């Protein structure tokens, strides 16, 4: 099969109807065509009744194009585009519960400060950090914090929009 045969990360953005079962139809399609979803984030959009979904999946361009076309056929999907090659802004939010003792606490807070992240919960043995940024930023902070011991981690997965006035 043609297209680029190298597997790369693709960001698909879909505008979908906010109705019961729609998420199931979309994930079912990925499963059925043997695609792994790396992350999927869904929430409100500028249109009432429609949600915007950001899906990150790995595959070669031809495969991703096939999935995009199949998604486009779903009745509840209004529009779906692969914005990987486009100029986009993408963000992720992560909550990281990191082990903290009296001796490590200030060092952690320093790192958090450098990343412009926030401490959102303080407990005797831990700190919970909230960080927003692109994946690289979240990964680097996570890397640094893992030296102290990460007790729990929750990431939202990527959300993305194309830049400027294009849509």
């Amino acid at each position: 099969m043609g297209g680029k045969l190298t597997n790369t990360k693709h960001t698909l953005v879909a505008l979908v109807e906010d109705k019961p079962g729609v998420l199931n139809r979309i994930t079912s399609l990925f499963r059925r065509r043997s695609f792994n979803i790396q992350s999927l984030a869904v929430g409100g959009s500028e249109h009432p009744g429609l949600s915007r979904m950001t899906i990150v999946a790995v595959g070669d361009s031809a495969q991703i194009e096939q999935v995009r076309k199949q998604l486009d056929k779903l009745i509840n999907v209004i529009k779906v585009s692969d914005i990987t090659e486009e100029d986009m802004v993408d963000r992720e939010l992560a909550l990281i519960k990191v082990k903290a003792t009296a001796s490590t606490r200030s060092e952690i807070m320093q790192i958090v400060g450098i990343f412009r992240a926030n401490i959102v919960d303080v407990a005797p043995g831990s700190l919970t950090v909230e960080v927003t940024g692109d994946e690289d930023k979240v990964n680097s902070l996570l890397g640094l914090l893992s030296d102290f011991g990460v007790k729990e981690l929750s990431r939202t997965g990527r959300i993305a929009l194309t830049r400027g006035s294009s849509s």
Partner: protein
Amino acid sequence: MKKTGAQILCESLIKEGVEVIFGILGGAVLPIYDTFPQYPQLRHILVRHEQGAAHAADGYARVTHKAGVCIATSGPGATNLVTGIACAYMDSAPMVAITGQVATPVIGKDAFQETDITGITIPITKHNYLVTDVAELAKTIKEAFHIAQTGRPGPVLIDIPRDVQQEQTDFVYPDKLDLPSYKVVSRGHPAQIKKAAKLINEAEQPVIIAGRGIIISQAYDEFKKFAEKAQLPVAHTLLGLGSFPGNHILDLGMLGMHGIACANMAVQNADLLIAIGMRFDDRATGNTREFAPNARVIHIDIDPAEIGKNILTEVPVVGDVKSVLTALNEEIERREHGDWLSQIEQWRHEYPSLEIRQSDELLPQYIIHQIYEATQGDALLVTGVGQNQMWAAQHFVYTKPNSLISAGGLGPMGFELPAAMGVKVGRPEEVVWCVAGDGGFQMTIQELATLTQENIAVKIAIMNNGYLGMVRQWQELFYGRRYVDTKLWNPDFVKIAEAYDIPGIRVKRREEVIPAIQKAMEYPGAFLIDFLIEPEENVYPIVPPGESLARFFEPSRPEVLGGKL
């Protein structure tokens, strides 16, 4: 005036032009059945198994080009439809399947006969609905028919809880659709059509691969004009048989695993493939890496997702076949392709795939050919799955548009009888032959009762080889002749028919074939012939799985299977 959900369903079906419904009742659809007597213009055909209802609706749809409608109760009724829905989905047949559901207050509580049928059928329907508010029902039905019947057709399921069937609301059948995301491209892009025409005009060794999309689009005339104008030879997918006269000089017959040698040779040696309304199924292409190695590819299809799915396409044209061919016919030049066509003729002589060997044995190929002779092709042939299906595809000459009804994509044994029933109901004026496998026939044999109860005159020809024949053939060729569990003990099919009040005869010898077919045709009602065919007869040519189409095996070419035989 207020109407119940059940009444709204019936009136909406009538608005959609529905005349026939195939189904079986049960608790969750009783309110619907209870209103049927108010609508005598809806004919309900009571089948004996919901799989039969779905295949019948599918058969009906394929020959009428209208959505076939089937109905089943919740739980087991709904799950029994699944095979038939999947079959219609794979072969792009329009269908609206209606299922009863448990009442809304108990949905999700594992109530008696509750099954998540919308969840189950997501991957095998074009769309499906669970209607929880009676006010949404009419709109939903309108959408369902529109989605099922337009673009690339397919099945749509509507799940209606019992209480919704009983609730009342004002009935207005909407005249507008509200489907913002559902777009059907019908006209091909002019620039793509120009590009396609250029390739066609330049080609020296072009071949068309004709699929069912031509039939769905009812583009027979445009297609014939297209092929004739540029002298383009026509190979068919299994479901593309019946899109072009089978006795035409340009017709090559079916390609693929059991394709006619000259069709496969032509495709493998082509410099241009013009694929029309087909989806490059692996049974048609053989090994895709070695498929038509020197060909540039034009792919015409209404479904953009088919473009580039299995085969890299140079010029895609997304649109309705009829409209695209009409436009293309204006752009293409008259050509002769004399050398190429005589090369193909040479292959036809070199590999006479369709020659039936002279023998005293009762050969299935001979029987199929005699059905063709007796009907002069003026019949609709519905097949089972397996060897019988391939013999029917190869040895009947499909001169009449849309005269082969066969389950190509899913290939469910048991399709033959209920589908033939639906075909005959849809086209009562036609002679309908059901070519059955002795194995497949027993998967839906109960529909003989439906034939009798509803007076449906299907002629049944069982290709009785006492085997799950196609599987036995694979065991013979690819598993060292180890016939594990493919031998069938069969009942006396003639007696069975008789028990269902259908006359039948058994044919054991060649000379009995023609009189038996004659007798079946003369009899006004359903008739069964149990042909005791040569048990170990094989389907040839065969391209071994995973091989290129050029490596077709037939007994005259033992080198292909080499040591494997």
